[in-house]
């Protein structure tokens, strides 16, 4: 397995270079370094001299990808792409356009993102699996039919509606929790209740339908009939046998997103004033801060690759027949 992991890590290098190149190309097709400087310097009294100084200070005064003026390797290394990309592979994210170290920002903003994402993830899995098993238990009855209808309705509603509706109902009308905000330590609890409830409710529809399909596929198999023949209760059959055997498809969907929990939720963080990495990315895109955008895309790619690797490893844990080699 160790050799497999090393091989997968090596495979990821060209992927990351490709992702970097694409991010770079897409960003600079839309924005030139001059545009970035103008955006940063504001609207009033921006002179060409100020733009030049801004670019020089941040290393954007070099050619984008190929430097004609240099010789040898310098043609490639003395460019914006090389300068800004190579350090990423050592997880040196450099500085944002406002001069703040990006690595420090990521470390600081990762925790609020996790504080929302982990409860949503765990409570969501629990609620969704239980709800899906309930529907399977009452399959072909009115509970199943209305449960599916309910799931489709939940799926059809925009997350924005849940957020605004949740803030209005629980925060404004019932006045049970703060409408938005964030605090550190245990004080964060009261701020997390509402986004977590909304995050969980927002995910019920699609996940329940997906899990229900998996469970229904399993329920007709021979081992289930054997379990029932042994006299096991339906609940025991569902939770002990069906759930265990349905783990591989469930894990495929779940484990891959675990590392991405770090990246936070774009909408929830914005509306609830949570200073996480989701709102950090959105702000960077709006302010055309390429340094942050490329760092977050790179980090997202690394975490996604890590998630895929973890998924493979998890298969070996839930199914002894799977071997990585």
């Amino acid at each position, binding site marked *: 397995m160790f050799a497999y992991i090393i091989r997968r890590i090596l495979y990821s290098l060209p992927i990351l270079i490709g992702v970097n190149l694409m991010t770079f190309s897409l960003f600079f097709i839309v924005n030139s370094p001059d*545009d970035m400087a103008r955006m940063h*310097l504001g609207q*009033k009294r921006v002179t060409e001299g100020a733009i030049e*100084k801004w670019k020089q200070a941040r290393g954007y005064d070099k050619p984008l990808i190929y430097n004609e003026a240099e010789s040898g390797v310098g043609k490639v290394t003395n460019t914006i792409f090389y300068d800004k990309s190579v350090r990423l592979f050592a997880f040196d994210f450099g500085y944002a356009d*406002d001069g703040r*170290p990006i690595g420090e920002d990521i470390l600081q903003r990762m925790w609020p993102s996790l504080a929302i994402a982990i409860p949503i993830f765990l409570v969501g899995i629990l609620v969704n699996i239980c709800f899906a098993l309930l529907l399977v238990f009452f399959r072909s*009855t009115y509970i199943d039919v209305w449960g599916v209808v309910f799931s489709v309705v939940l799926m059809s509603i925009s997350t924005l509606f849940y957020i605004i509706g949740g803030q209005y109902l629980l925060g404004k009308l019932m*006045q049970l929790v703060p409408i938005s905000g964030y605090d550190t330590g245990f004080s964060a609890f009261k701020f997390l209740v509402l986004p977590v409830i909304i995050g969980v409710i927002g995910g019920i529809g699609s996940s329940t339908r997906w899990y229900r399909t998996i469970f229904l596929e399993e329920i007709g198999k021979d081992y289930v009939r054997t379990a029932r023949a042994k006299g096991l209760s339906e609940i025991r059959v569902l939770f002990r046998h069906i759930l265990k055997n349905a783990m591989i498809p469930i894990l495929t969907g779940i484990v891959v997103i675990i590392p991405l929990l770090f990246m936070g939720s774009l909408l929830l963080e914005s*509306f609830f004033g949570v200073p996480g990495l989701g709102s950090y990315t959105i702000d960077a895109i709006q302010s055309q801060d390429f340094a942050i955008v490329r760092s977050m895309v790179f980090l997202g790619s690394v975490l996604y690759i890590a998630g895929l690797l973890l998924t493979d490893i998890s298969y070996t844990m839930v199914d002894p027949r799977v071997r990585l080699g």
Partner: protein
Amino acid sequence: MSGLLHLREKIIRHINILLLVYLTLLLSSCDGRPWNNPYPAVDDGKNILYSVFLQRPKHLDPARSYSEEEYVIHGQVYEPPLQYHYLKRPYQLEPLTAVSIPVPVYQDKVGHVLPDNAEPDQIAYTLYDIHIKPGILYQPHPAFARNKAGEFVYQSLTESDLEHVKILSDFKNRGTRELIARDYVYEIKRLAHPGVNSPIFSLMADYIDGLKEYGDLLKKRYQEKKKAAGDGAVYLDLERYPLSGVKVVDRYTYQIRIKGKYPQILYWLAMPFFAPVAPEVDRFYSQNGMKERNLNLDWYPVGTGAYMLEENNPNRRMVLEKNPNFRADYYPSSGEAGDRQAGLLDDAGKRMPFIDKVIYILEKESIPYWNKFLQGYYDASGISSDSFDQAIQFVGSGEASLTEEMKKKRIKLLTAVETSIFYMGFNMLDKVVGGQNERARKLRQAISIAVDYDDYISIFRNGRGIASQGPIPPGIFGYLEGKKGHNPVTYKWENGKLKRRSLAEARRLLAEAGYPDGRDAKTGKPLLLHFDSAGSGPGEKAVWDWYKKQFSKIDIQLEVRNTDYNRFRSKMRDGNAQIFSWGWNADYPDPENFLFLLYGPNGKVKHHGENAANYDNPEFNKLFEKMKNMDNGSDRQKLIDQMVAIVRYEAPWIWGFHPKKFVLYHSWYLNAKLNLMAQNSLKYKKLDPGKRLAKRRAWNKPVLWPVWLMLLVLILIIIPAVIAYMKKERRSMNMRA
């Protein structure tokens, strides 16, 4: 059967848990503290102002910062020599750290002093001697900390000294020192520092003697030092390099030498660009290892103001605290008519600041901000379009007033016309709409009549604005009210009121321009014009449709060419836009700051200036050059009237509107008056924290019955499922039996 008993036990256990939760909720609500209070209990009843910031500030360095959002924070920390009187209108300058308003001394080329009424072309230099008050102290800061031997503690730091330093408060020792003239001179030198990249350097280099050359010198030295330092920090000791136009006269006096005459420099002296920066603070932040820790002047401002920035976490909140070293500064004892009745002089002569601490919270979305304001968790709020109808109603006379809901909460509304203008510009370099020929002028005049900005204000701004009659907004010298101030090209003055000219007149002008019925008289083709925009978002489509409708009123077809903001700016720079919308917010309350937007040598395409329409009229330019250096008075007013008349007739802009600011304040927020020029107005504000606490408790009692109702509904839904489950289990048991 045992399975059913087990299930019953389980249900009883769950009911017990629910009861326990209910009792806990009930008990926790007994202390009367609202559950939705976002602030810690220890802060209840404290003299803390809660406000918001919508996006993280880019700069807090006074030489770099040039945005209203940033001034809100560092405007309370830094003290330039002058300030605007908090209450008096029109806006008036008064001394802040200066002893008095500096008086200009004019000199000719050889240094002879000229009389006060000397002609501007005779004046080679203007000298301003600025005397500052003695005894003003800086806020406590590690840069000033000294040991018993009198040596600086943190001015020669090594990497190991910084090992455990992450934020500024990790430096345990703090010190202070007296504000001296040298600090003001140091900051003016910083405007030319290549590493600082001040946005006003180019402008000031045109006026402050020697600043341009100083910038060249610093650039050279900076590059040398940067090369030598490699990846290390670069520190340029500006005190080693004298600047010819700015010098220290004595400990409390410094002198600025201006090229020619530039009376607007006094307004700049009320802006943070001219606030003091102590050289030792710059030296402290320029040490190795500081940049990596984000310890710099851009992040941790150091000043003599009423407040100091104690926490700078732009990801979440920024906290200003009272500066313990702040000098004795007193609330003004005079204002304009009506201020006494409004209670704005109740604190006259009392020592400021009144508020102990200000917490700015990052609140990006308008809905949570508005709802938290209504719950009493923010002390003041603007009004977004979403919440406008909830807050404001228009009474018979067209005046805005608060709705019953707001009145019930005793919320106060303050309004003021902003010193800004939003206009629709014609590119004067364009072949169709541009140029100073008769045909193009009449076309522009026709369009100016057709585009009804009164309608725009009513539809898109909820009535928050007034239609502009020219480039100068109300509150600025040169603006005229009533008949004298109306634009005769687009309006008539009838029965003491403005009346927009008819579409028939617009059509007539259009026909005279060579486009009868909106068609080119020569080719017969319909007239198609292009509106260049950088709009985004769903609301923009409605605005474009409205523009199209306005043009179609006189049978002109308008095509909207929408691009992203970068492309739009590029079009504007290259002169490829035809019609566009643009805006300007005053730097200072002087007509020069608006009329320069139409000054030819300030054209965007040819001179990269702020004249976006590229309007260039030699007569206007000549008048502008004369007017800009004059003192306010009837002579200046005459010139302004002539200039405004020219541009109204030429119509390079459709004059658009001046926005009106609406701000709501809670009843416990005192001494609130909108001052659109002052950046340090926080020190005048006052709170009644006891009243706020009582109101918050009264307004935020948790409503629990919907929770129990939801639980009941849930139980009612679950019961059939439980019955079905029990039946199923019984059936399978029977089958097994």
